[in-house]
């Protein structure tokens, strides 16, 4: 069975890979992922906040106390090889590259055009085979319009494309007024692929202390449906490749994603829950199903159920909405 696929110009044995997560912090886990058959390694994101916030807060809480008092010109030691978040990250890219034979996709996550984007160049130099640029942005300012958000993200994508020679994917959220239009603009600035979608970690409320609290909910297969719809809509209409991220837990989930148009399928929650070996069982399941259904290759079904090829395309469009609602009433 030929499961090979091409994602961001990389020739991969199959579409399954771990998505951006802390799993790659541990080299042993990375090796276990390789053993489980992952086709590539996606690094966790290096956050703009890490690059900017940490540095600036260190400046405030450490440097502000230096050279202030006669008895102590500083209060903390000055290690020679002090590695900041990015340096550790780059080191990890190098280590993973050395440890496994797989392509490594590094990831940057931020919201503003700034110096932090220069780290993309360093990621390339550290050996990353491709980059995933996560433009996670939550507009809270009413003065910031949809166009502003898109322009900003496009600017960042462009800056990274200019900085590096390796392929660049943009990881998107589902909240754009017109995702196809935005996707086309990303296409136009030369982005090599899109990852659908970011999963937003939704804060909870502590009603006793009147505080918002962080919460982390892992995905399940129900999260997949949103991805399937938009993969299907974009598939065939954008130049770059597509990855599905979020909600893939079973072989059927992965097959659906590919049918909707994914060139790559990223898994995180399932691997966090059940370990790297899950990737292998999903891959085996895909292969078995495809054999049972007499597929010859993955490419045969890639995008087979997208908006252009689906026998009932209205399911992806608005008409479906009315239909479903009336069924519910009934």
């Amino acid at each position: 069975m030929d499961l090979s696929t091409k994602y961001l110009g990389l020739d991969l044995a199959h579409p399954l890979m771990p998505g951006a997560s802390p799993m790659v912090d541990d080299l042993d886990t990375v090796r276990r992922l390789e053993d489980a058959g992952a086709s590539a390694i996606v690094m966790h994101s290096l956050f703009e906040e890490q690059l900017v916030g940490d540095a600036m807060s260190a400046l405030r809480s450490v440097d502000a106390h230096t050279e202030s008092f006669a008895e102590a010109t500083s209060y903390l030691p000055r290690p020679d090889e002090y590695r900041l978040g990015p340096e550790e990250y780059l080191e990890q890219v190098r280590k993973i590259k050395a440890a496994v034979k797989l392509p490594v996709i590094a990831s940057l996550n931020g919201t503003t055009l700034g110096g932090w984007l220069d780290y993309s160049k360093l990621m390339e130099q550290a050996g990353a085979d491709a980059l995933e640029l996560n433009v996670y942005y939550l507009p809270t300012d009413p003065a910031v319009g949809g166009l502003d958000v898109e322009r900003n993200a496009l600017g960042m994508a462009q800056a990274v494309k200019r900085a590096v020679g390796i392929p660049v994917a943009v990881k998107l959220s589902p909240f754009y007024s017109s995702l196809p239009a935005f996707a086309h603009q990303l296409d136009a600035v030369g982005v090599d692929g899109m990852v659908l979608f970011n999963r937003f970690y939704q804060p909870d409320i502590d009603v006793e202390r009147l505080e918002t609290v962080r919460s982390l909910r892992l995905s399940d297969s129900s999260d997949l449906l949103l991805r399937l719809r938009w993969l299907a809509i974009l598939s065939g209409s954008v130049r770059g490749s597509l990855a599905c991220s979020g909600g893939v837990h079973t072989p059927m989930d992965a097959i659906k994603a590919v049918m909707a148009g994914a060139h790559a399928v990223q898994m995180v929650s399932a691997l966090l829950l059940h370990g790297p070996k899950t990737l292998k069982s999903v891959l085996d399941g895909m292969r078995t199903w495809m054999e049972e259904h007499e597929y010859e290759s993955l490419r045969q079904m890639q995008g087979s159920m997208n908006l252009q090829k689906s026998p009932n395309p209205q399911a992806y469009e608005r008409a479906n909405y009315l239909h479903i609602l009336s069924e519910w009433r009934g």
Partner: protein
Amino acid sequence: MSKRDLTMVDGNEAAASVAHRTNEVIAIYPITPSSNMGEWADEWSAYGRRNIWGAIPDVVEMQSEGGASGAVHGALQAGALTTTFTASQGLLLMIPDMFKIAGELNSYCLHVAARSVATHALSIFGDHSDVMSCRQTGFALLSSNSVQEAHDFACVGQAATLRARVPFLHFFDGFRTSHEVAKIEVLNDDDLRTMLPDELIRQHRERALSPERPVLRGTAQNPDAFFQAREACNPFYLACPGIVQETFDRFAELTGRSYHLFDYVGHPEADRVIVMMGSGAEAAHETVEWMVARGEKVGLVKVRLYRPFSLHHFIATLPSTVRKIAVLDRTKEAGAVGEPLYIDVVTALHEARTDGISSFDAEPVVIGGRFGLSSKEFTPGCVKAVFDELNRAKPKNHFTVGIVDDVTHFSLDVDPEFDIEPDDVHRGVFFGLGSDGTVGANKNTIKIIGEETDNFAQGYFVYDSKKAGAVTISHLRFGPRPIRSTYLIRRAKFVACHQSVFLDRYDVLEYAAPGSVFLLNSPFGPEEVWDHLPREVQESCASKNLKFFVIDAYKVAKQTGMGNRINTIMQTCFFAISGVLPREEAIEKIKGTIKKTYEKKGMEVVKRNFAAVDETLANLFEVKVPAKATAKLGRPPIVATEAPEFVQRVSAVLYAGKGDHLPVSVFTPDGTWPTATSQWEKRNIALEIPVWDPAICIQCNKCALVCPHAAIRPKVYDPKLLDGKKPQTFKSTPYKGKEYAGMAYTIQVAPEDCTGCKLCSVICPAKDKSNPKHKSLDMMPQMPLRELERENYAFFLSLPDPDRASVKLDQKGSQFLIPLFEYSGACAGCGETPYVKLLTQLFGDRALIANATGCSSIYGGNLPTTPYAKNRDGRGPAWSNSLFEDNAEFGFGFRLAVDMHIRLAQEILKRLAPKIGDGLVGELLNADQTTEAGIASQRERVTILRSRLAGMNDPDAKRLEAVADYLVKKSVWMVGGDGWAYDIGYGGLDHVLAMNRNVNLLVLDTEVYSNTGGQASKATPLGAAAKFAMAGKAIGKKDLGLMAMSYGHVYVASVAFGAKDTQTVKAFVEADSYNGPSIIIAYSHCIAHGYDLALGPQQQSIAVDAGIWPLYRFDPRRIAQGLPPLVLDASPKGTKVSEFTKTETRFQMVEKVDPKRFKKLCEDAQRDATQRLAVYKYLAGLTIPVEGDGTGAAAAEKE
């Protein structure tokens, strides 16, 4: 021979650079101003820097200088090339070993940044009183006068000691040389190898103790042998000066820098000569050259090798024409015929005459004088005054210079206008805030000028004694010739004021020379700024014809994301205006240093700094200076007009930075100083202050408890007091609790004393239910609130405080007691001072406090302000600092004296009972003083007693009057940090605990030596980075509490106010009430932990939840009740240690350097915490058999 670098370094780095490369073992202990030498050595070894023989020196921190010296002695005896660095009290602690080291002729060079020894007061600044205390040890004393010399003599000392076998103490002036940044030529490794031949090292090794060729040293000798054996070393001392001169000569051959045992400067036929040593000699050198150029026959002898003193070399150095000699000592030896160098010179001249080697045409007159104690300025004016004095027919002997002595009139008059600085030396003075980065940028500036141009350059930095809102003054000089001006700039060509508020407090333009440049950072633009200057500033601008520039640096910083760091912006202005370098080149160099400084902190920091530099010039404007002043208002008075006379006359002068003008007569001869003066220094350093919303306040008083500066306070009072008197914006609300039903309640901020640390606002639990973002305390800009809140605060203070007897001594109630520790100079957000303040609220009116040297003694007693205060009756803590190492014993002495006084009073009372009245005496002797009400009653009885004694003409009555106050219960406290309690003072602390007397020890545990800059102590937790433990401490924190518990009779508590303030207050109350030794170990967050201290209480909670800071109380009184003496006051919630470590730079740093190691350290810390807790849990279940109960075994109580 490889080439030598020219570089800008300070004296400490210059000396340490040689010491580290020429030694193998370095045993250290931090003490200002020498700490940096140890830090450099530690850092270099941690980086893997090798000595000239290819080994990485082993740098070890000891528990005290005594310990360091012991380790040095041992390492020397075992044959290692060994050194250490110290100053002042540290050097005194080394003296016993120094006698031994010298007596055994060990080759050893010790480096000292000379500093005042504490006498009537501690001082961190420079003089020779420490070094002079070592004259009798047998060490050679080698004095360097400048940064280059500190570097050179470190080498000469090391080389000479190997040849001479006499140990050397190489010293240079603390701060003036140790902290001055200057351009030096660096000795390379080849130079050092040339100076330290292998043969000498081999001989040193051969002298080592070794079982292969065993010998015995350190014998005990008897009258038959000791004397002769002691004299056996004489040949070495006789040969030593010659060896030093030979070493100097070899050094001169190598480097071209020529030195002699005594160096003469001046007219070859001088009739007046000054003899001195240390950095002051450079100012004298400069002045002598200036005077000789003007035809005066004057000269200077710089003493390089003070011990062994070479009579022959000294006499040969002096011109035969000398008629009068002034010997200047930078020390005071009270009661001596004269100071040490003076006596030596007199003796030398006398002996030379007796021996017939005197070459003088006529025997010179010699006078001695003191100068420069505690870094007192020693200027060309002082030098001139000394020469002028020598010109008199009968010059004054035993004079002082640099001060005005209006008591004993020893001082010389100095012409304040005398100025010899040449025009081609550029001079800049910069006023900044510690936190705005001014000093760091100026260090970079002077490095750029020194290293990138042909100029010689010098940077010297003056800091104030506050830790929050500290003012810094940078003095930069550069010019075409070596700079010998070892004194502050007085006439600058460039004066920059980086904070416009300083213009209201300091005479900034006092430093401006006519026609110079004045650069001001101000929110007002070039058109408006003039109208916002105080009249005095305008007058200076006009009369001195200053070129005035203005920039809104905070605007530029904000625009470029730099927050309040304006340093690179102001630095760019300096280069742009001064034209030292072409603008483009200057900007390129500034960016180069920015990259070097911040590269490791992230590209964004570098980019933002670059952006700030680029934006600067567009925002820099020249201001047209009108011909004369136009402002009506001048600078506000330094202190309020209602301040006490002493504060007006003395403190205010110190606050204004003009303390040098105060004469001797204003000071007490024994160092006594009034308390309660901090209230008069209104510093206005907070950008934001808390604003109280009474509507949602739950009246918990937590804000007051956490406030490090006593700048937010609650009060309950009769609402009638508000009628017609309250200021319009004064807020009040009905008190909610039953205990003060019907009373009014107010939370009031002291707007001018608040530091803006936010702790009160962060801890405030009262949120607006409809808008939880709004709390009962929100931070708001101070400026618009200042006037109104000042008035409100004054009214608040005028309201009566609740009767102490009515106050419940718990967390909430304790905050109604007035703090008798207020507005200290501690850091904004300090984690120590809330405990100190609580102590004074609970017991301050009857407390004696012994304070170990460290942060708490500095914010507690560093002039100009004294934060320990008095209540309305004039009572308050009596406080004193003895030493770092002896604080437990010092406080124990308080207890012994108090107990003695009590016994004496009781005995006399009994004797006088018939006269005083049996009833009153009985009540006085049997008073129950366990409550505030009981104490108040006893005070009343003592008042009655005094009135009865007043009428009695009995000697016993007079004796009783002197001690009657001790009949009221006293609370004796020893306060100090972990450096004291865990390390240097542990022996004494342990002994005092064992003594079973009623004393209370408060350990403010910041887990590092905070005051000297964050060096590791035995309290430093596992995994944390600290200086001298850069890779992260690999062993756990010493369990001081458990060690104290092992005595069984000691009350022990471990507290963290941020985690459980109720338990903290309970522990303090119990400790005081326990009639035996008590120790409270108090978790204190600190800037040395590297995070925003507004989160301090939250971190404390996490520490408790993770089990790394257990809360407990061990009360021996519970044993008699059949209860387990140990009570655990918090159950860990299973929070991971990593939750605690992830916020603090001290841990994160370790992770970033070596993530794998850090992971292991975290696991170890987690295991340690679990194991420690298991032990505590077990102990908390144990009851101890009461004496004679016959059970003989501990019965484990089920949880």
